[in-house]
Structures are given as C-alpha cells and as structure tokens.
C-alpha cells in the first residue's frame, strides 16, 4: 500500500536527503536548496549519517550491495516529516524501489513503505506542498531546463520545475530539441558504454546550446555532471576559457532569482 503523495497541510519540519553526488560534488546546490526551504519558514533537518540512496549499485545489477546501503538510510528518518531530495533519480529510488528492495523483509519493508510515502523531489515539494510562488528579483534572463528521466518518468514531476521557472517574471524559458530525451548519464552506463553515452550527451549539449539560452538548469546533479562535464570538455578542446554552456541546479538559480541568501 502506498500513501497519497500530496500532503495537504504545510509541514513545519522536513528532512533533507542531499544525495551523495550533492554532498561531494555539488554542495552549493544542496545548501541553496536548504536555504530556499528555510526561507519558506520550514525547519530543515539534515541527518548527519546519510550517505547514498543505493541507486548506483541497484541500477548496475548489484542488488545485495544496494540493499545494504539502502538499509542504512531507512534508519535516518524517525519522525513523520517529509523527506525532500534535490534529485529526481535518488527520490525515485527511495520512493519506488525501496519497497521492492525490502519485499522479503517484512520489518524493513514496512519502514521502506512509510519512508516511500514521504519522499518528495525538491521541485515537486516546492510546488505541490508549499505552493511556492517565487518573486523574481533578477534582470532579463533566458534559461533552458533539463529534466532528468527519473523525474519525468519515475516521479512524474517534469512539470513542477517548469512551473517554478514560469513563475519568474523576467526569466524566459526556452525549449530544447528532443527535450524529453535522456542526456546519456545513466550512472555506470556512462562508463560501461562510453561511445553511446558520449553520443547522447553530445547531442544533448548541442540541443541545449542551440536554444541560445544563457544557462541550463536542472533538478538533477547526475545529469548536470554529465552535461556540464561534456560542455567543459568541448570548451577545453576549443581552448575556450569561458564556459560555453553554464549550468546549475535549479535550487541555486531559484534562490538567486528570489533574492539570494539575504
């Protein structure tokens, strides 16, 4: 049994599950997401013992190892608060795969199900639970939004990021060709099949640049790591010092547009 996702009352406290990628590679995005939530009057709790949702092993075919890591995360969220995750794919792992991962273990399965029902992707939480209406303080700006496949197809939250950006008065959001197509990251896929993954990210970066947007924003740091990593590699090859495709997590963009850290 899964509980309804959308909770009607506005919570006073939330847990923040940063994800291993944000903790180690995009800490600024995590901090900005937390600040953004706090500015909505919410107490954000960061369980110190959090590590990783387990998805890298899970999707690579190492379920036992994934279970071991996931089992540890199950212990981190004792209170009945929403768990906000600044990544569609890690949120998808916790929401949709945890209950399956512990199907054979009734005690942990029950915990996983209670946890699953409380998991929100960040933009989903901002829109569906907080009804966040950003007040734009920035100048004219053209951005392009990349939505991760997990956010789109697993979490079904591809419209929430778009809605947040649409609320920014002076920001115009342009749409890239083949918008819904995967950027080619796919965790270990990018390493195991570098030729195909490389072709996918090449096409994605080309489509993003072709929009003429100043920057790309995304709610998933895995995709950003891939997209920005390829764009930077292209710049390096071309001997260019300024990034040809700057990008950041949507939380950082939203925070800055709505007045920074103040």
């Amino acid at each position: 049994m899964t509980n309804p996702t959308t909770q009607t009352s506005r919570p006073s406290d939330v847990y923040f599950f940063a994800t291993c990628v944000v903790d180690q590679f995009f800490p600024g995005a995590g901090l900005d997401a937390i600040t953004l939530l706090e500015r909505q009057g919410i107490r954000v709790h960061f369980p110190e013992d959090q590590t990783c949702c387990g998805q890298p092993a899970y999707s690579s075919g190492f379920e036992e190892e994934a279970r071991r890591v996931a089992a540890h995360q199950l212990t981190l969220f004792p209170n009945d608060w929403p768990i906000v995750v600044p990544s569609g794919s890690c949120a998808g792992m916790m929401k949709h795969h945890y209950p399956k991962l512990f199907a054979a273990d009734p005690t942990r399965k029950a915990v996983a199900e209670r946890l699953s029902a409380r998991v929100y992707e960040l933009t989903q939480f901002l829109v569906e639970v907080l009804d966040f209406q950003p007040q734009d303080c920035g100048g004219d700006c053209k951005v392009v939004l990349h939505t991760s496949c997990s956010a789109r197809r697993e979490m079904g939250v591809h419209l929430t990021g778009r809605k947040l950006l649409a609320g920014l008065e002076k920001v115009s959001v342009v749409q890239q060709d083949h918008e819904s197509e995967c950027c080619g990251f796919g965790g270990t896929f990018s390493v195991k099949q570098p030729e195909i993954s490389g072709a996918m990210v090449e096409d994605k970066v080309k489509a993003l640049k072709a929009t003429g947007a100043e920057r790309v924003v995304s709610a998933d740091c895995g995709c950003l790591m891939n997209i920005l990593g390829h764009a930077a590699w292209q710049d390096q090859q071309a001997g260019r010092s300024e990034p040809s495709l700057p990008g950041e997590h949507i939380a950082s963009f939203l925070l800055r547009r709505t007045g920074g850290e103040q």
Partner: protein
Amino acid sequence: MSEHTLHFKPAEGFRARSKAVVDNPFLRQSFRGAMDFLMSKRAAQFPDPEELESLRSLGEAIRQYNLAKLPDLLEQLEANLTRNGVKVHWAETPDEANTIILGIIQGHGATKMVKGKSMVSEEIELNHAAEAAGIEALESDMGEYIVQLAGEKPSHIIMPAIHKTKEEIARLFAEKVPGVDYTDNVDALIQIGRNVLRRKFQEAEIGLSGVNFAVAETGTLCLVENEGNGRMCTTAPAIHIAITGIEKIVEKLEHIPPLYSLLTRSATGQNISTYFNMISSPRKPGEKDGPEEVHLVLLDNGRSQAYADEQLRKTLQCIRCGACMNHCPVYTRIGGHAYGTTYPGPIGKIVSPHMLGLDATAGLTTASSLCGACGEVCPVKIPIPELLVRLRNEAFSAPHANPAMRGQGAGHSALQSAIWRGWAAVYGSPALYRAVSWLGSRLRFLVPRRQGGWTSVRTPLQPAPKRLRDLLKDRN
C-alpha cells in the same frame, strides 16, 4: 538444450559496432530522422493520454491473462487447429524448427518458397538452413527483400531496411536484380520489387508466414500486414507454413481488437493496417483458392525459461510493435545491427538472453541508461527497465546462483564484485563514508585526469573542496 549454429554475430563486439555507427554522422542523422518520423506518427495516433493509458492497461491485462493460461491455451489451440485441418508442430530449438520446416518442404519435393515477414523465421535463420538444403527462400516483404538482397539481417523488427537510404537501395537493385537500371525513384523501385515477386508467387510451392495472434478458442491464425504479400504467401502456394513463438496466443477473438489497435498505432502510427488476415484451415472442398495444406510451427527457443520466472514472464507480453526501439535513445544512436541479435533495441535486450543465453548477451544488458522511454511507450506495459536491471543482476552475480537462467553469471568478474562490495562497505557505514568523503575533498587535486570512459568526452570528476555537511557546519 540442443546445440544450434547461429550465423549472426552474438553480442560480442557490441562496443566496436556501436562505435562505428556513432562515429558515422550520416548514419546517425539518418537513424535520428527515421525514429523522429516514427515517434511523431505514433504520437499523432494517441492524442488523448487517458485513452492511451486505459488502452495500454487493457493490452497489458489481456496479455497477462493469456500468458497465465498459456499451457492450457496451447493445448486448446492445437486441438482446434487440428480439427480445422491445420497440422501443428512443436519445436524447442531453432534447429528443430528448421528440421520440421525443411522436412515439410522436402516431403513435397518442393524447392521454391516465398516468405512473408516473420521475425521468428529470422530468429531460427531459416533462410540459411533453406539455402544449405538447396531450397530457394525469397523474402516478399519489401524491406525484408532489400536486406536479403544485401545479404544482411533486419535492423528493425517492423522496418527491416530502415538503415538504408533510397540511393543505397537503388544501387543494390541495379547490381543484384537482372535487367534493372539505376533509379532512385521510390515508386519505380517498388515496382521493380513487385515484378520480381509477382513471378515468384506464381512459381513457389511453399508460402511461409509468421503469426501475430493465434486464437486458441477458434483455431485461427491472424496476420497483420500492409503490403498484401503476406496474403499472397498464405494463399497462392499449395503449402502454407506458419511459424510463431509459443507466447503469441490469445484465448478469444475478442482479445484481438485492443491488441491490434495498440500494435498498428504504436508500430507505424497507423490507425489500422491495410490487411488483417485470418487463417482457420486449408482450402475446403468446393473452395476456389487457398493452400491445400496449412502447418503451424510453435517455437519455444528460450521462451519457456522466461515464462518460468514470474518477473521475466512479462517479457512475453510483447506484441512486437517496435515502439521501444523507435523511442530508445540508444537504438537511435546505433541502429539495429550493432546489437548483433535478431531482435535489437530494448525488447531485444530483454528477450535475447533467453534465446541465446546470458553468456552471449551479458554485455547488452549494460547498454541502457535506464531512461525509461521504452517502458513509457510499451503498448502492453512491459517494465523493460526493471527487467534489464534484473538481467544485470543475473549476468553479474557469481555463476550458479540461478541455474534456471542460461548463462547466468557470464558477466561476473571478481574485481567488479569486489568494487561494489567495497562501495557498499563505505556507503553502508556513516563513519567510513564521512572519512572517505572527507579524504576525497582534501585530496581532490589527486583525482586522476583520466577516468575511464567518463573522460573520453568529459572533464574529470573532482570532489568539491567542502562537502555539504562541511558547508552546513560552517554556516552554523
């Protein structure tokens, strides 16, 4: 499981073949264009997401209902076909299927066969077996005819020659068809094919076809096609041999309309196909046309292995529409031949391990970013990404963990397993994770500049100077 020789390359060399396509801008552009076209055709057929969703759920339910009753339905089908005068044969392997088919042909002293489109006949490599036995087997579906002339295999299950441009086809016809001059006029090319085939339909003693749906309750074989060649193959020659996988069965005729609608709309974006053939018996006394004999060969070839597993059984829901290929960013980049299997693309990655064993296909399971586009468009809701993850588990776990899965453990490597165990030890322990991630941030300048496949087109990954947990501490 008996040995059989497969002429197509197994999944070995997949990376080299995919690289060859990826590095060819012309091919890449051409696949992209073709897939874009097919995607937009399908999208136009399903303007209402709610209708699509309810139809997909219905399709899934029908397929699951029929699979649940499969053993009984197979018996019922055999009984009813036999009563209708159709001879039913059972083949466990491609070899057995070829032996049965060649036996029927040779039993009649026949030497000429025309074939309608059948992926199962590709699966058993019937053309090779026929050629070895001195039997002429001519493909009559235009796309199949083209790939046969070129000495290739289909690169797509619905559009076998989608990898070829009209100029390539024009050159092929000029070279291979006697008395034909180069023309890249599509209508003229089709006319050339028709002229060749028309003569062959008159000469052939044997017509071979696939089956889209076999109806158990009535003993009816249903065939979906557009060109009319399928109807010719099943009516003009004196002997009709149909071949299909054991999973293609529905209990009742009324199960077909939703599946048929999903099939044509998902495959080619057609509301309905030009032809829908229903074959229930050979020619009856007093009838003017139709074959004198009708045979059905039911092929297992690993399907029962998938069937035996509750999760993997969903693989058999497939109605072979090819939508998963059309929407797959990997297939779009590399085309069908790179896979080296009869069935390419997402469905190929989940069905081939049962046909060829994971030993031949373990590498293919990694060729997916798990983006989910395939599962999203599958008309019968096969959870393809979920099944791929399952197959990765079967491929990489230590051998003998699951004897029911042929080739299980073929992708196992002690090093890879050790790495993941080490990873789980670190990420399963907050203290270790804190220590390792702290070290990572301190030693960030020591990360290697070359990071395997990642840095072939990306800058190296480097941890941030401070972790989020450090930034949070600094803030407080």
